[in-house]
């Protein structure tokens, strides 16, 4: 078996590089995941300014874009994080499929959460959503002729007045919540941080953060649909 598997992997060395190992790939996923999580938190806090009125939100949007070097620097870090996160996830996913070629006739969960078992589903759905979201509110193609560059408040109201778009956002945010419910504590485990005193707190923090992000973000399309924001 060892020679057969060595032939399959093309490796005979007893050492292994950081990126070659599953542990290294998960560490990369943890760090990039942390970056993306922090962005998502900041993004929501920024967007919640919609409740302070059109002027505040549009001013904030303008301020964010006022320093191109900073804007593109952040965008580059985010893009790189997304790419590395996806490459590592894909390679680990392929490895998972190869590791168990024959599925169980019967398999039952003895101790994992639904969110943790569906990371390979929530992840790709979020990717599809992010592409749609950028086309919707950043570049405007998905919003159509109503899109007005820089007038974020207007774009959001118009965008969410179309019910199917709001539903897509609500579903995507539930996926985000599910992804982060596992991801936010799991990233600590991946880089080797676990302690009976802190890990239960980290799991609670992950649940609270996920719930806050879901509620905070969903509140915007819901408010538009209910006519609270107009």
């Amino acid at each position, binding site marked *: *078996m*060892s020679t057969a*598997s*060595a032939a*399959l*992997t093309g*490796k*005979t*060395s*007893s*050492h*292994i*590089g*950081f990126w*070659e*190992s*599953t*542990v*290294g*790939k*998960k*560490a990369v996923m943890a760090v990039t995941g942390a970056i993306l999580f922090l962005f998502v938190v900041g993004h929501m806090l920024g967007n919640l300014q919609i409740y302070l009125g059109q002027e505040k939100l549009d001013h904030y949007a303008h301020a964010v874009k006022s320093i191109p070097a900073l804007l593109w620097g952040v965008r580059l870090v985010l893009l790189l994080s997304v790419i590395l996160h996806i490459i590592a996830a894909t390679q*680990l996913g392929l*490895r*998972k499929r*190869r*590791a*168990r*070629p*024959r*599925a*169980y*006739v*019967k*398999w*039952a*969960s*003895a*101790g*994992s*959460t639904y969110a*943790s*078992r569906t*990371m390979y589903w929530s992840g790709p759905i979020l990717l599809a959503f992010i592409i749609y979201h950028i086309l919707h509110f950043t570049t405007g193609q998905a919003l159509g002729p109503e899109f007005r560059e820089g007038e974020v408040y207007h774009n959001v109201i118009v965008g969410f007045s179309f019910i199917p778009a709001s539903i897509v956002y609500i579903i995507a945010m539930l996926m985000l919540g599910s992804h982060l419910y*596992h991801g936010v504590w*799991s990233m*600590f*485990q*991946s*880089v*080797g*941080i*676990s*302690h*009976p005193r802190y*890990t239960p707190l980290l799991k609670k923090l992950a649940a609270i953060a996920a719930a806050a992000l879901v509620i905070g973000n969903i509140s915007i399309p819901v408010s538009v649909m209910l006519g609270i924001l107009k």
Partner: protein
Amino acid sequence: MKLKLHVWRQKSAASAGRMVRYEVEANEHMSFLEMLDVLNESLIEKGEEPVAFDHDCREGICGACGFMINGVAHGPMPGTTVCQLHMRHFKDGDELYLEPWRAVAFPVVKDLIVDRGAFDRIIAAGGFVSASTGSAQDANAIPIPKTGADMAMDAAQCIGCGACVAACPNASAALFLSAKVSHLGLLPQGQPERKERALKMVAAANHELFGGCTNIGECEAVCPKHIRLEFIARRNRDFLKASCTFREETAAAGAG
């Protein structure tokens, strides 16, 4: 009690297997393996091939036994190997699916028996301490902090049964590896080879085509020895540190 069993039957590693249905009359005082012994007696009397399954001590301490019962490694009782699982936990008329551990690194040998040689090769890669021969020094000559000794004992409980791999949707050996890396890495005797151990054992698991850990916790739930997920974090820590600080040996070892 009457049970309906669906058992994975596979003549050899090369042949295709399938689920076969059996009925067996058991009583609640039997262990699960004794119930299978009864089934096998009846199969032998009928001139059929008995169901092959691994077992040795039947005391829950050797790690030889183990298969999936209704999709859960070692069956429904936590912290229990299949040999220590008793039929009183089942009801008359229960329908049970018995399958071998499934992983490319654990090829089926026959029926419910898999080849866990991959675990032996991982141990050979680094799951040991090098010790001088000769008479052992006094056991209390090396001070060991109590908490470290306790944790090392917890990790050392791993019997290498393979349930963690079987339960893991990724077929990852992370819990097994973490127990072995931790139980030596927590003790003074394990320090000289600590970095090398983490690197070599992770490399060996990679070469055996085990999957990667996604921290979901199925392994911890089925482990008959309650090895904790915390040890996987420890293994990650050891590996990441070792990977970042690794350097080649610069000189040949002296001959003393």
